[in-house]
Every structure is written in C-alpha cells, then in structure tokens.
C-alpha cells in the first residue's frame, strides 16, 4: 500500500523509507514558529532544559502579531520577553512591529515555508502552509520549546481524508466558501487526528490565496493538517517569494484514504457559518435578513491581497450602512502597502471602513473590534465560538470577504449579488 502526500513528507523528515498511519515517529523540523501569546510560555519552558540555546537560529520564526502594537501593559511585557529572547539567541526571523504581519500570511510571503517542509507552530492555524505542499501543524508552547531546543518533534503519522475538488468555482465562490462548505459537511471533528488532502481538476482554478484560506481552516474540522499538491501556480508563487530549495512530494496512486469526498466547485453557493460553531453552515440563499452591527475583513484566514481586492471591488463607490462598523485589516505590511498602491485603502476609507495595521486583534477577542452584549458580527475570520470576539451573548457569522463587504453595505447578511 502506498503513502499519502503527508505520510511521504513525514517519512522523509524521519529518515524512513516508509511510514504507516498510527506509527509514532521523530521528525526533523524545517521551521518552528511562535507568536506573542504562545512564545512567552515556550521561552519560560526553555529554561528547564539542561542543554541551553536554540537548535538553529535561522529555523525559528517569532512573530508578535496577536496583541501588537501592544494593547496593554501585560501584552507589552509578553512582547518584550519575545524580543529579548530573539536578541539573546540571535534569531534571524524575528519580526518587529513595522515589518511584521499576521504570522500565517507573513511567513509564506517572506519565503520561509516551502514544499516538503515539516513545520510546527504554537498557533493552531499553522496548518496554513499546507497550501504550498508542506506538512505544517499547530502545537502548544511546550512542543514549540522542545522544537526550538532540539529541532525535532514527535508525531503520530495520520491517516487521511481525500477531497476531490472538481470543476470551476461558481461566481463569488472563494476558498472560504469551499472550506466552510467542507466543514459543514464533515463537522468540527470530522477530520480529527487526520490529514485533509485536497486534489482534483478544480484546484487549478484556485489562487494561492484561496488555497491558503482552505488549508488554514483544516483545524476547524479537527484536522492535523491540510495539504495541496504542488502545481504551476505554486511554483510561480515560490519563484516570486523564496530562494530556498524545496522537494516536491506526491501521494502514491495506491495511497489509502479513510474517506473520499467530491466537492463540485461549480455547484457551490456563498456559505456562512452561524453561531457558535464553524460547522453550522447555511448557503446565502437560505438566510433571512439578519441585521448586524459590525463587519471584520482580515485575519490569517482572509487578510491577503485577493481578499482585500474582492472586498474593495464590492465597496467601491458605495457606503456601508448607517450605524455599521466595518474593520479592514490587511494581514501584512506588504499587503497594506500594496492596498495603498492599488488605491484600495482609499476605497475602504471613503466607504466608511476603518483600516488597521496588521493584527490578529478582533478575531480572538483581543482588541480592535470587541463585541458588546447582543451584538452581531459578520467576520472573515475562522472561529465563531461563544465569546470568541467579545461578550458571551454576542454572535459571529463566518463568511467570505465578498459576503462580508456586501453585508457591511446592506446592514444585514447579504449576497454580493445584491450589490
């Protein structure tokens, strides 16, 4: 029996000819990532190691992005801890405010993630880099500490579910609609402990930003990782962003998959996840007029250039509804700059939106858009759990940038077709 794409990458990183689902392995890491919330815990744990220092100063990325620019004194202390650790250990890839971005948008942009890599990050959305054909997965701070110290991590080799994406996406269908549809189909634990391997002729119609969005939310189905094959678009992206050499892996033709699903992209409709689980999906045509108070367009899921262009395309020449707050957050400084050069910032501001520097802020109820009791928000972020964005009696509806922008204009959850 053959191996899945994920299994092949893990076998390579473990120095083994072959691995099987369920096998425990020790794999060499290409990159270890942490942010301002998870790194301080890991840095503290590092002190407990008998051997000191990091395994490779070039293979660690520290990205303060959750509560920066520092939202309060305690956050400032956390960021200071990360900054001092980076300085002391001469960490190459530490990103200060001004050159940072939301970690999962920033690292591919900086060329730090390539096909065939094994990457762990103390952030659950580390699975994003599967879009480039890497194995990447979220871990906690202790695993991050162990990874920084030893350059290795233990894994249970996952089995996989295959998602065969077919056809050309229908109008307004983005990566977000595809992944929300899939989560609605299999549930928030539908891929628990397993890989989500995407394949099929539909992939060629998906931009790299679509693929990042899809791989990013594999965790919302409980998945260990989400992964895409490497194609011409991936190669073009890598050419533009990195000088690193990489190795391309493909699933064997006789690889075993626990389950297989076919997703007909041409038949999908814009999809929205209702409170309080990403699996509570509804298509836009079955949604009544639900009045909302706030819209957030950004995050590691949907703060990339495609997302900004789509939102601006809908908001251009329009104004958001009276009383609406629409918060737009380009995910990196580079994306922010590109938005400026393309005139997107002007469109956002003229339509009544506020535009922020890169931050995870509102997505996890940190700052920059906290909801009051009873308030409703349409958000391009990834989780709509109870209290995620503020008060426990507030509500989050997850959607694509197109639906979010349309909803900001209308004042209720709306299809981009309605604009």
């Amino acid at each position, binding site marked *: 029996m053959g191996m899945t794409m994920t299994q092949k990458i893990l076998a390579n990183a473990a120095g083994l000819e072959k691995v099987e689902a369920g096998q425990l392995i020790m794999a060499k890491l290409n990159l270890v990532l942490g942010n301002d919330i998870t790194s*301080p815990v890991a840095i503290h744990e590092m002190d407990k190691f008998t051997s000191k220092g990091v395994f490779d100063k070039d293979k660690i990325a520290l990205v303060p992005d959750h509560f920066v620019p520092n939202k309060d004194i305690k956050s400032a202390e*956390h960021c200071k801890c990360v900054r001092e650790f980076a300085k002391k250990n001469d960490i190459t890839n530490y990103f200060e405010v001004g050159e940072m971005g939301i970690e999962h948008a920033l690292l591919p942009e900086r060329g730090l993630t390539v096909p065939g890599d094994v990457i762990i990050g103390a952030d*659950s959305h580390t699975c994003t880099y599967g879009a480039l054909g890497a194995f990447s997965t979220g871990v906690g701070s*202790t695993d991050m500490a162990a990874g920084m110290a030893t350059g290795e991590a233990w894994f249970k080799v996952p089995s996989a579910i295959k998602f065969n994406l077919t056809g050309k996406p229908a109008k307004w269908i983005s990566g977000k609609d595809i992944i929300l549809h899939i989560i609605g189909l299999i549930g*928030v*634990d539908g891929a*628990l402990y397993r890989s989500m391997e995407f394949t099929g002729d539909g992939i060629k119609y998906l931009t790299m930003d679509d693929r990042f969005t899809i791989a990013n939310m594999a965790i919302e189905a409980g998945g260990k990782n989400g992964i895409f094959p490497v194609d011409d678009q991936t190669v073009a992206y890598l050419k533009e962003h990195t000088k690193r050499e990489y190795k391309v892996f493909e699933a064997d033709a006789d690889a075993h998959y626990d389950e297989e699903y076919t997703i007909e992209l041409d038949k999908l409709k814009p999809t929205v996840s209702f409170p309080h*689980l990403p699996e509570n999906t509804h298509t836009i045509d079955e949604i009544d007029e639900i009045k909302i108070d706030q819209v957030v367009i950004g995050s590691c899921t949907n703060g990339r250039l495609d997302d900004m262009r789509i939102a601006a395309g809908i908001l251009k020449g329009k104004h958001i509804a009276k009383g609406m707050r629409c918060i737009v957050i380009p995910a990196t400084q580079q994306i922010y700059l590109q938005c400026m050069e393309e005139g997107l910032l002007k469109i956002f501001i003229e339509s009544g939106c506020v535009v922020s520097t890169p931050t995870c802020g509102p997505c996890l109820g940190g700052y920059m858009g906290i909801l009051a009791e009873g308030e409703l928000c349409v958000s391009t972020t990834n989780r709509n759990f109870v*209290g995620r964005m503020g008060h426990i009696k507030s509500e989050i509806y997850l959607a694509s940038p197109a639906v979010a922008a349309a909803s900001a204009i209308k004042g209720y959850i709306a299809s981009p077709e309605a604009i």
Partner: protein
Amino acid sequence: MKAEGKVFKYGDNVDTDVIIPARYLNSSDPKELATHCMEDIDKDFVNKVQQGDIIVADKNFGCGSSREHAPIAIKAAGVSCVIAETFARIFYRNSINIGLPIMECPEAAKAIKAGDDVEVDFDSGIITDKTTGESFKAQPFPEFMQEIIKAEGLINYINSKK
C-alpha cells in the same frame, strides 16, 4: 497513581476559548489563568472546584486554539483529570506535554453525571463512578506517551534522554 474527585460535566466541542478566553491571554501565570478557567461556559466553576475534582465531557474536548494556557488553567485550578469521549488533537498533545492527566473513554463520558464521585486509576486505566458503582476502562496510552507522562512532561522526558 490514583485521583478522586467530584465531577464537572460538559457537552460536545468545549473549545479553548471558553476554557480560557483570549482576553486573559495577556497573562501566562498559571494561578492567574486558573481564576478564569471555564469562565465563558460555567461562571461558577472557579468558585466550586476543589483540589482533585474531575472534568468529564463528550466529544472533541479542547477544540480550537493551540493555547497551552487551556490545560495549564485546568491543571492550576486543581483538576486532577479530564475524561472525554474524544479530545481535539492539540489539546491532547498539550495535556500530555504539561502533565495534565487526560483519558479517552466514550463509555465513561456518556454514563458519568455531574456531581458524581469518581476515582481514576492511571496505572490500570480503570475509571470508577463511586456514586453509581459503575466502572469503565479507558483507552491505554501508547508506551512512548506513557514515558512522557511518567517523566511529568515533555521537557523532563527530553532531559532524561540526554
């Protein structure tokens, strides 16, 4: 090694945002995190929980964010063990790595009720509901994970290997 305590019972998909809301993640002090443990799903938890108490939940416990602050908060609140039908994978890994005992046991998760007095034998994997007299056998951990658990966490385990 054994643990015994009163049960706090929760349903499916208890996420790390309700275990420890992100608004408190500007701290990484276990004692401070413990004072907000389970706040957004069970406001009374921190007032009622006693040293040694046990959390029992249905499927996918600990889903969502990778914040290790979640198992840290639970452990620091005095909880001796979490029993669930299934755990989200990052929470599972984090619990083992920081030495919070967890057990996967669908039968126990289904049968045990809030307030029951439950005893857990970590060596045999036997969970006993002393209130009802029922007992259950949890899934055993692979040997490798047992070694991490015995070392009381990943860092000690790695140190012991050198």
